């Protein structure tokens, strides 16, 4: 009898110790991981920022009443404008030309629910200049402006959202040439996002 009780006691002690160790090391480790990966997180963000400010993405994240197009990010042809919901105006909607998939034979890109990012997600100023890395990071992580997406939500958005995926399958221009791709592959983009999210979506300081 005492032998079993002793064994149980020992096992309980072991479990407790293990648990304690896990808690302690987890906390310590987390602190160690956060401290280590904040730098990694910021590096991840800089990679994400390179993608977000590539024409395939930033052309629809304007501060103005119009989208941009092309690698030179000129104002979109035909005087198309944002409209109240970012979908254009009656008679001149995004859907007037942009369908659910790319139209390579005519050079018009397409994707599900083609529309402009809301003004809360503007990544440029009113002079069509991209905002700083710090400013875009702040915009993207502001849950009052980003459809209440937390870190995991942002990661999922980057992984799965149709219009995000479109940037890596942007189709042909009217002259037959392929549109240029963002500087990372989608996989690399997601990995960078994950690093950034795991670090707690840190933003660079500054304006």
């Amino acid at each position: 009898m005492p032998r079993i009780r002793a064994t149980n006691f020992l096992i309980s002690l072991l479990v407790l110790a293990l648990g304690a160790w896990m808690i302690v090391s987890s906390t310590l480790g987390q602190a160690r991981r956060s401290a280590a990966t904040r730098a990694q997180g910021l590096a991840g963000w800089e990679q994400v920022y390179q993608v977000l400010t590539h024409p395939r993405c930033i052309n629809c994240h304007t501060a103005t009443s119009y989208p941009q197009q092309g690698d030179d990010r000129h104002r979109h042809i035909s005087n198309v404008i944002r409209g109240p919901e970012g979908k254009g105006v009656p008679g001149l909607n995004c859907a007037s030309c942009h369908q659910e998939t790319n139209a390579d034979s005519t050079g018009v890109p397409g994707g599900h629910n083609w529309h402009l990012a809301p003004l809360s997600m503007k990544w440029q100023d009113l002079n069509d200049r991209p905002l700083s890395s710090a400013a875009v990071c702040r915009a993207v992580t502001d849950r009052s402006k980003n459809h209440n997406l937390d870190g995991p939500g942002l990661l999922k958005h980057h992984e799965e959202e149709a219009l995000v995926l479109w940037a890596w399958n942007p189709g042909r221009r009217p002259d037959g040439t392929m549109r240029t791709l963002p500087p990372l592959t989608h996989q690399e983009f997601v990995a960078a996002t994950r690093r950034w999210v795991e670090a707690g979506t840190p933003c660079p300081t500054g304006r």
Partner: protein
Amino acid sequence: MATYQLNVNGQRKEVTVDPSTPLLWVLREDLKMTGTKYGCGVSACGACTVHVAGVATRSCVVPISLIGERPVVTIEAIGEDPIGRAVQNAWVEKDVVQCGYCQSGQIMSAVALLKHTPKPTDTNIEESMGGNLCRCATYVRIREAIKSAAEQSK
């Protein structure tokens, strides 16, 4: 080549064409409906505007393979719609047209506007019609005719 079942102006139409063919050219050459015009082929001018599932659509850039079962309405039938008829009547009454080549598209865009916004402001008109090019530049009378059509459709 592929065969498509289309719904054009309420009628069933079947065409066998290259899937990449824009709706514009299917309408004009396979269905012999030349009211919808070719002005640029790159969605910059609006002469090719039709309605697809009620949305004003630039048919020169939409391949037939992406139309599906969505109903297509063209200038040839828009007069059967009361707003379409009001717009056409206003266009004639206000003597809008000059060469007339862009006007099918102008009318289709104007109808889309009025269906959504029965009493458009000057700004609404300018924004919704802002992508329809008229080289003759009949814009002053286009504005007047839209306002007149809006009045008539009260």
